[in-house]
């Protein structure tokens, strides 16, 4: 058998066309949903990224039982770097990912959302709070996590509940925050909301921002200490939260409390491990799982089976929202009946999942792709564990405010 030049060219053209169309064809026809999971498993946010990854790892088995959908995870490390997040998102899509999930970071989420929009691949944000992620008019980005504004509004409302429950009325606070995208977004939200909340008795004396990758926070803490504020309002990440508490102990300053109106760090396993008794009594007002929910029970069993040396409570928010993001993706894929990006995005817009793990109403997205039904709980560290102290209906212990001096711990 021989080919002349014309036949060869036609065959090449045909093969080329098939090859070019292949990803789209396979994307639309496969039965298992290929989920690209983007998380910061190395770099400055490595610990939290690896914690989120646990939620992704246990999700396929539970989702299969719930929805009958097969999930194929395609994991990628964003290295805590926005540019890497963007390029990994591109690569995942090139490798056949039909939906993206992640990335526990607002800066990375903004970069991935741009890629998702260009490539018409749906993107479900697990954790990232900067409002602009769902304010750009994107059609393929959906977020099952509060915006900074909602996070702060819910968190500050819990400040009021805490002060009422403990009969406390602190007069002053110093606000310390990381200066990354997430920290800046929270700062803007606090500056916009706090002056309007006349039911909160305190005044912010100073605002101190710092680099989340800082190796030393001695100057920051000395500045905060000089304000003689009653308590610290903190928007942190993990490593800086550890550094900050160490520096507070070294500088012998015991504020009435360290309270986060909605940021990670102080309820992470590494925080307890690194600080021991000094991790106790820190307060985080954050979205949390429903400890009495049936789905929580199921997730906890799967978690214990997969990670017998670990406990869900130390990864609650990270595992919960990452698991839910994959659940949302599978639910939309099932209803769409196709792995086509536009069909899944259309299905995502009609999401209505009543049985969920995290506190709040059913999972639904508004026209911007934002879930607005999420609630926060007041978590206080007690005996090296995160404990729900508010709202009262879910409380596992009574809140403590003011907290004991560093020198009077254990």
């Amino acid at each position: 058998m021989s080919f002349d030049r014309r036949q060869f060219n036609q065959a090449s053209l045909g093969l080329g066309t098939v090859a070019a169309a292949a990803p789209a064809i396979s994307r639309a026809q496969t039965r298992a949903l290929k989920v690209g999971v983007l998380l910061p498993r190395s770099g400055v946010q490595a610990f939290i990224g690896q914690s989120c990854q646990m939620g992704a790892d246990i999700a396929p088995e539970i989702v299969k039982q719930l929805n009958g959908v097969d999930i194929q995870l395609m994991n990628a490390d964003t290295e805590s770097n926005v540019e890497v997040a963007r390029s990994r998102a591109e690569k995942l899509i090139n490798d056949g990912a039909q939906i993206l999930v992640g990335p526990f970071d607002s800066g990375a989420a903004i970069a991935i959302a741009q890629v998702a929009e260009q490539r018409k691949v749906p993107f479900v944000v697990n954790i990232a709070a900067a409002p602009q992620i769902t304010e750009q008019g994107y059609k393929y980005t959906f977020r099952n996590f509060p915006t900074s504004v909602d996070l702060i509004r819910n968190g500050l409302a819990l400040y009021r509940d805490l002060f009422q429950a403990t009969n406390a009325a602190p007069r002053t606070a110093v606000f310390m925050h990381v200066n990354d995208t997430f920290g800046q977004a929270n700062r803007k939200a606090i500056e916009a909301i706090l002056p309007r909340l006349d039911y909160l008795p305190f005044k912010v004396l100073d605002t101190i921002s710092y680099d989340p990758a800082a190796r030393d926070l001695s100057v920051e803490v000395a500045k905060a200490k000089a304000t003689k504020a009653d308590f610290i309002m903190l928007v942190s990440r993990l490593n800086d939260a550890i550094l900050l508490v160490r520096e507070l102990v070294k500088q012998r300053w015991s504020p009435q409390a360290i309270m986060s109106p909605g940021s990670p760090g102080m309820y992470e396993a590494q925080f307890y491990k690194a600080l021991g008794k000094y991790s106790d009594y820190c307060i985080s007002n954050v979205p949390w799982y429903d400890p009495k929910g049936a789905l929580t029970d199921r997730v906890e069993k799967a978690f214990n089976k997969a990670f017998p040396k670990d406990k869900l409570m130390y990864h609650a928010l990270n595992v919960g929202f990452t698991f839910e993001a994959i659940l949302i993706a599978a639910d939309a894929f099932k209803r769409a009946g196709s792995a086509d990006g536009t069909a899944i995005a259309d299905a995502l817009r009609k999401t209505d999942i009543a049985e969920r793990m995290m506190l709040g109403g059913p999972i639904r997205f508004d026209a911007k792709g934002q879930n607005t039904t999420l609630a926060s709980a007041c978590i206080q560290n007690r005996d090296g564990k995160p404990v729900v102290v508010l709202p009262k209906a879910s409380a596992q212990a009574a809140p403590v405010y003011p907290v004991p001096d560093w020198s009077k711990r254990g």
Partner: protein
Amino acid sequence: MSVDAVLNIVLSGLLTGLVYGLMALGLSVIYGVVRIVNFAHGELMAVAMYAAVVAFATAGIDPLWMLLPVAGVFFGLGYALQRGLINPFIHRPEHAQFMLLMAVALILVNGLLVVFGPDALSVQVDYSLDSYALGPIIIDKVRVICASVALVACAALFAIFRFTAFGKAIRACADNLLGAEVVGLNVKHLYAVTFGLGTACVGIAGCLLSMLGDVTPNSGPAFTLLAFVIVIIGGLGSMVGALAGGVLIGMSEAVAGLLITPSAKSMLSFALLIAVLALRPQGLFGRSS
């Protein structure tokens, strides 16, 4: 802000600056004699930090007990590195030396990444959170210890160069290479010893810094940059300049955090660098050529 708070911040900057000074001293000594800029300086320090972390994690050894063993090993490492790898490049163009040492730096960073992974590791000794109270001034105990050790190490190095015959021979090589060769000094050996001494300084500084902060494989390049800023401000090749530059940078970071905003701590350091380059290119304690 109260005077106490200002004193606390400035003192903290001074103590950190002394450790920075010891770190930069190694770079300055090597350049002053061998005329090679060690672009793997920070990476070698990250290796020393990991050595301290591993010794503490596996055998509970306090990094202070690791100072002399690490200094000894690093002296040998520096000696071997100079004799085996760098010496053939001594008379080659500067860009060839730069590429060689950048390659060493890259190998070290990625080697650490392979062995230890990307996570931050630290040493938490029993007294990590202790502090001294002098009236209203609170001083971090670990910083005081680290700064004291840094001062002793610097003094020892000054003494070696100033008072021993061996040190005089090294200085002779730095002052007049041809003359040193004519009088029969073993220049290759002296160069390697100098590189070893500079690397030992880095080893000691690494052990001390492991008590002050976390280490990751990517800490190295940041330390290299910091060491460069310090020695350029102090004067490349000047031992006093390196120590003074370290203190200046430590203090400027603290003062910037105090007066401007902690987010802009590095800004003042780099502003100082630009000012020195513009007004006194040889550095504060450097000799103009």
